[in-house]
């Protein structure tokens, strides 16, 4: 019964995805396409949940449905709203896309079945990850253990990717001029409702940050949630106020600080001649060291993600609008 239900859910969700994709190809109103992308990430996050990839679903929800929509709208504000219909059909792309799709299908043909207990991914390293997480790291969320400890070097790289994305956007767009912008009109209902909501969002962000060892979440998601709280503030009360709360100029530095926290945590273990990012060296008790290391590292990730996302938002929304005719 339950297994059937899961199958039905999967099929429905995948069908939704396909429908959304075709619809967004057909619709020329870019604004509507942005809306559909929002739905797309809601559905794909549901799929991730159904595949038991909770942390991925969390990220998809925070970034895909929330921040990306805001960002796309900010970008859309700067260009035209409707697709240029004249130059729509470039036939060169079609065979390439079809070829890529065919190659993907061809490759998938020999995959092990979904949920197959004999698949190599369940045999080769996964048992070791599960065993060692219990023994040496002792936190319930294995995903966090893999991300922050086993493959902490990758996560360090990803943090730097985010940092460099922030630097790239800053280089291209700058910080924007807030004083020329049209501020939102006063809306009493929104003002009343949003204030407690922001408090709630920030508290929830803190919860996700420090609960990442036990449940879904971690620094990345927490950073996005925190930034969303400030974006909400700036949406409702106007960007002038938001920039007074968190000045735009300190954001790049906060982002750099996040990267540095991560890196220096890794370098600490070098002092006792252990490899980079070996958290065992952080404390006399190896398990305690792992806990401390993961905590610090997640804090670095959270800080970097928070400041970079807010930075990107500021630089997009601070641009002057040019109305194309």
């Amino acid at each position: 019964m339950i297994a059937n239900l899961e199958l039905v859910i999967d099929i429905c969700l995948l069908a939704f995805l396909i429908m959304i994709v075709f619809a967004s190809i057909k619709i020329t109103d870019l604004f509507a396409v942005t809306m559909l992308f929002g739905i797309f990430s809601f559905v794909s996050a549901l799929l991730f949940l159904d595949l038991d990839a909770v942390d991925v679903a969390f990220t998809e929800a925070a970034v895909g449905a929330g921040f990306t929509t805001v960002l796309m709208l900010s970008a859309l504000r700067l260009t035209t709203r409707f697709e240029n219909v004249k130059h729509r059909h470039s036939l060169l792309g079609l065979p390439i896309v079809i070829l890529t799709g065919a190659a993907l299908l061809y490759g998938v043909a020999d995959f092990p079945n979904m949920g197959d207990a004999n698949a190599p991914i369940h045999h080769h390293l996964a048992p070791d990850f599960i065993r060692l997480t219990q023994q040496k790291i002792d936190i319930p969320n294995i995903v966090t253990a893999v991300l922050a400890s086993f493959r902490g070097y990758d996560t360090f790289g990803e943090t730097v990717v985010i940092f460099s994305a922030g630097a790239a956007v800053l280089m291209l767009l700058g910080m924007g001029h807030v004083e020329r912008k049209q501020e939102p009109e006063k809306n009493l209902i929104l003002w009343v409702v949003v204030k407690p909501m922001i408090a709630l969002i920030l508290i929830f962000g803190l919860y996700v940050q420090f609960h990442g060892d036990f449940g879904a979440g971690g620094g990345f998601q927490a950073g996005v949630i925190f930034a969303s709280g400030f974006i909400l503030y700036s949406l409702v009360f106007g960007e002038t106020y938001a920039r007074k709360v968190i000045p735009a100029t300190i954001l790049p530095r906060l982002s750099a600080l996040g990267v540095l926290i991560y890196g220096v945590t890794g370098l600490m273990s070098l002092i006792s001649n252990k490899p980079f990012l070996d958290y065992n060296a952080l404390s006399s008790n190896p398990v305690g060291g792992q806990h401390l290391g993961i905590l610090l590292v997640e804090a670095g990730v959270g800080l970097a993600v928070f400041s970079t996302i807010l930075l990107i938002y500021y630089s997009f929304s601070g641009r002057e609008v040019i109305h194309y005719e």
Partner: protein
Amino acid sequence: MNLMTHLPVLIVVVPLLSAALCVLFNNRKSAWLITLLASFFCFYASINLIQIVQEVDVIIYSVGGWEAPLGIELRIDALNALMLLVLSGSAVLVSIYALKSVEKEIPVQNQVLFYTALLLVKAGLIGICVTGDAFNIFVFLEISSISTYALISLGHDRRALHASYQYLIMGTIGATFILIGIGFMYVMTGTLNIQDLSQRLPVVADTSAIRAAFAFLTIGVGIKAAMLPLHQWLPNAYAYSPSVVSTFLAATATKVAIYVLIRFQLSLFGIEFSLLQMPFNKILMILGTIGILGGSVSAIYQSNVKRMLAYSSVAQIGYILLAIGLASEPGFTAALLHIFNHALMKGTLFMALGLIAFRFASTELSVMSGIGKTMPLTMAAFLIGGLSLIGVPGTAGFISKWYLVTALLDASLWPLALVILIASVLTLIYIGRVIEVAYFQPAPEGITQQKVPKSMLVALWIFALSNIYFGLYSDISLGISSLAVNQLMGVTP
């Protein structure tokens, strides 16, 4: 704390953290100083690593203290060490060169971020070259790519934005393809470590998933390496980016992609599978040949010298691919040698062009008339680089071409050897055009001796002289290359 044992990770982490420090201090001068110091540290580290590799063959460093398949290992053998030398060497010269060039070409508010991005590109490329983990390659590829897109867009020409956008789209497709390939391999084997993959892949090699993974990886890396039909981003990206960036990219970026190609083909899939079972060696040779001829011919028709050299880069990549396609020991040696030597000559040429752009704010052929007299030192270095590109004996370019032709003759492919000769003539034509304009046409009225900053000239001449040095004494480059080839092919020396 023993610094030496941690060099493999420090060579990546130091530039990464220095990039963060640049932003934190937010001061132009200190940003440059940090960049310079980090580059020198990387150079020092890479020289030490080469020495260690020559003694112990392979350096393995487990990050986080987790052993290889579980954690991420850094794995440095002779091939990586060679790449590290190329990267950090050019990074040092570019950093010296950057001070004045950036002051002139980059808007003030972006200069700190420029150095940050430069450090990130460097760290990303180095990160690709030291890691022994397939997914880690992707992560560092992303770091370097994102920063590269931003750097290219800073060129003062408006077309730089378009070039950057073009590269962004193509590069992202390439990165996605690489990720798909890695994902497919992970599904079939359950591991991401290259060493572990190479042992577990033969069992499942005869599945459509692995064949598809191979195709995706190759095309993805091919885009990054500007392999012939996928090279469209390269000419614009090199032509319109700031001089510092085009110098560094021309010397390193595509080579790192080719390194990844070699690593995937040889260490991961194995020669048997990738080059012989898949008919990939033939494809590589054909693409390489077309690239050599097409790139050279296109170069002749360019009026912008920077663009001309960019097309020449497509041709040079053709040489390297052709050499890899031979799938033989001399072929690989020639390929690695050419990676090394091409970095030297393209570094020289682009740096010289950067100096010309510094004075005339343009690299069109028309501004260069009589420049041999007004900027004698710069043009002399350009001449050396050009001769090296043509392959005149006594320069670095000669060595790699010599090895390539020998390898081709070994495989009794004399028509291809003929192609190399024809390409050399074509190179002579397009370099000759510049030389002719620079030395045999009179300078326009009123233009006299041009002053250029000493620091830039010093960096340029170190590059230029290294062309001659490695052309006369090829022991170092050849030694490491052949050691690398031996390790790749599993031959114990």
